[in-house]
């Protein structure tokens, strides 16, 4: 089920909240599990069994690991758990058996792997109850597109969480902001990208506009989803980790990846990069480790060569920055550093979104006038004029400026008093505006559902 749909907003969510709040405290996890399974079943009726299997498998494995901690058996159980999770990914994502990709499989397998690894490391105790663990694995707010929530970060909340009025309201606010990002910005950038793909008269200008539009679409789509997930988590009493921190204001690619899809980055750091040795053991090994992590990051997005190249591209940039570039970059004017990051990321995302290798080469070539493309076309000019406010809103909205201005305006005095009732009204207005687009719009699933 898609958060930004009438079915979710006006049927599933109210019904799920009523059921959850009506449940007595000791049955809240069970209520959460039931609504989460229904949420997944609605979009993936068959693969719901896979989700249940994953939860049961990791529950049994973790219990076994806990019982035999420190012994060889625990290691074998961990290997078995990882093999099953990677096996599911392998079969459905990389197997090429013509099977449809279960929505969110990359997210929930990574979550469950982190759980059994942490149990094995002794960083967290194995969950005794199957219901709380299954509620964690299947929890609908972050089930299909993250953030990747580690069990240890919400283990305490699974047992004991508070549902205060302020937390619920803050969660609703965060959810509505995310909904606005997705529906009012990401989907509209997607329209621009769709027009570009269907263009009658492509041009260099159109290619660059597309590169910017897709980069902003991806940001607002994914960070909007993360906002909605974090907001929903808060409504249900959970504190999920942040996933984005204004990545487009970064001054280096290294910084960009500390601000973009933060939970995936930290997952690879803790479960791949550091176990491989991190930056210990000499430069060649350190470079190997970085490239391995980025090769895997690319592959995590899909079994396609453009994802592999995309991952290695960023791996190489990060090696360059960490070995020679960061110091050198730091001495350059700020504008140049921002420009460098934006250009590097734009090129990366164009490659990322290419339709296969050939499509990737064509899209990248188009940026530089490949195949004798003209610089300008009337069609590109029309689309740019028609979307100029959107591009402006997107560019400003991707920086902390709006939030900073809002906090400044509502921090004290009259602004603070007015915000007390204007903020809820603004939220309701934003919610209605998003609804207007959904009522008139078509089905727009989130981009990260496909990973």
């Amino acid at each position, binding site marked *: 089920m898609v958060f930004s749909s009438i079915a979710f907003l006006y049927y599933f969510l109210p019904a799920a909240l009523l059921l959850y709040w009506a449940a007595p405290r000791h049955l809240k996890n069970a209520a959460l599990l039931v609504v989460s399974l229904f949420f997944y079943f609605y*979009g993936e009726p068959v693969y719901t069994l896979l989700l249940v299997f994953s939860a049961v498998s990791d529950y049994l494995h973790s219990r076994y690991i806990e019982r035999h901690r420190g012994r060889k058996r625990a290691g074998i159980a961990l290997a078995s758990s990882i093999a099953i999770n990677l096996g599911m990914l392998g079969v459905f994502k990389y197997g090429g058996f013509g099977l449809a990709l279960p929505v969110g499989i990359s997210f929930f397998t990574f979550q469950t792997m982190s759980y059994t690894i942490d149990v094995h490391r002794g960083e967290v105790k194995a969950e005794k109850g199957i219901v709380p663990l299954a509620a964690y694995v299947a929890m609908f707010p972050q089930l299909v597109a993250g953030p990747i929530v580690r069990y240890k970060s919400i283990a305490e909340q699974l047992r004991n969480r508070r549902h205060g009025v302020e937390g619920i309201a803050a969660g609703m606010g965060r959810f509505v902001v995310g909904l606005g990002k997705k529906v009012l910005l990401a989907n509209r950038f997607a329209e621009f990208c769709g027009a570009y793909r269907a263009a009658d008269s492509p041009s260099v200008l159109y290619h660059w506009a597309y590169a910017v539009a897709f980069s902003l679409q991806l940001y607002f789509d994914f960070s909007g989803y993360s906002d909605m997930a974090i907001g929903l988590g808060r409504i249900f009493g959970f504190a999920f980790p942040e996933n984005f921190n204004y990545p487009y204001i970064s001054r280096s690619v290294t910084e960009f990846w500390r601000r973009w899809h933060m939970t995936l980055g930290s997952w690879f750091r803790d479960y791949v990069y550091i176990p491989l040795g991190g930056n210990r053991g000499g430069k060649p090994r350190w470079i190997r480790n970085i490239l391995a992590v980025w090769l895997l990051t690319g592959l995590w997005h899909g079994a396609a060569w453009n994802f592999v190249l995309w991952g290695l591209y960023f791996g190489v940039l990060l090696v360059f920055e960490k070995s020679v570039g960061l110091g050198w970059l730091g001495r350059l004017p700020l504008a140049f550093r921002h420009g460098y990051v934006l250009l590097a990321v734009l090129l990366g995302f164009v490659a990322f979104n290419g339709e296969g290798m050939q499509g990737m080469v064509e899209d990248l070539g188009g940026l530089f006038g490949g195949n004798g493309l003209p610089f300008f076309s009337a069609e590109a000019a029309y689309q740019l004029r028609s979307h100029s406010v959107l591009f402006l809103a997107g560019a400003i909205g991707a920086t902390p400026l709006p939030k900073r201005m809002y906090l400044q305006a509502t921090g004290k005095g009259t602004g603070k008093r007015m915000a007390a009732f204007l903020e809820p009204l603004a939220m309701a207005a934003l919610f209605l505006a998003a609804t207007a687009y959904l009522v008139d719009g078509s089905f727009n699933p989130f981009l990260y559902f496909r990973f």
Partner: protein
Amino acid sequence: MKRQRRALLTIGLTGGLLLGTMALQVLGEDPAVSLWERRKLARFPEASVEKLLEGRLVPELEAYLADSFPFRDGFRRVKALLETQVFGKLDTNGYYKADGHISRLAYPLEEAQVALAAKKMQEIQKRHLGGMKVHYAAIPDKNYYLAEPNGYPSMDYGRLTEILQEDLRDMAPIDLFDCLDREDYYKTDPHWRQERLDRVVRRLGEEMGFVPTPFDRYERKVRPGFYGAYAGQSALGTKPEELVHLMGGGILETKAYHADKDEWTGVYVESADLAMDGYSYYLGGAAALQVLVNPAGETGRELILFRDSFAAPLAPLLMEAYDKVTLVDLRYMPSGLLGEHIDFGDQDVLFLYSTLVLNNGGVLR
């Protein structure tokens, strides 16, 4: 305390919206059609395990929920306003407003589609129209007059004309592009206005060799409250127009035979579904095969008119020049059936299609 009040207001407003809307949708009646959007609305889907497992149920349910959403038309209007007034978008869902008209973007030129339309006409000519006097004309859609001057993209009309000329060498072309301007079209509809077709009829007369009825002999009749197709589909908001039809010049005497329904009416059809489409007043709307007969006609001439909806208000204006006009809409009648329904002889033949249909020529069967 203040923070808690704010929180309660947020929860109350958002919760009220969610629950209130759900209640309205569940308890309210589902309309079967949307008069504004001129389409059937999705119905609650029939559920089955097979449908669910194959993933067909959810899209149908989503379509139903959007179509039956409370205050749907109001929300569509809000979206159109946000698009154009807040985000400054030049069109919404492809519809735009310029010079007081609402129109729909029609670009780029689909050359293959135009070629398909031409091929269909060629096939019919080869099979049925040997030795007959055959003309063709493209009716410019109103983007031809509105788009470029207002900065909107439009199809390459010059190239469209070229393709037709190249592919239809055995037919005589009639140029209508200079016989019209934007005011000859309804402001809220893609179609032209019957009372402003005098230049078109005169041009047809010149090329096809008939004497057109002078327009001053017609009497204008007005039907108020006409909202064209674009009014509701665009949700851009507009005032109603007056639908004008002409009487006199053989129109009153002419009878229309509707082969689909095996029924005779006048050329203006009160019983048509005018709530859905006011323009159906002309000849009753879409039909595969119709025959107009003027019993008082004395010319002895007949016309076979391959046409789209633009011909509905035009054909009655030809009823002093022709005793009988057979109208064929190849969107609804396969060309393979022509021989069964029409006796081809020494009739005049005119292929008359709007550029919108030509640009989507695959619809001609």
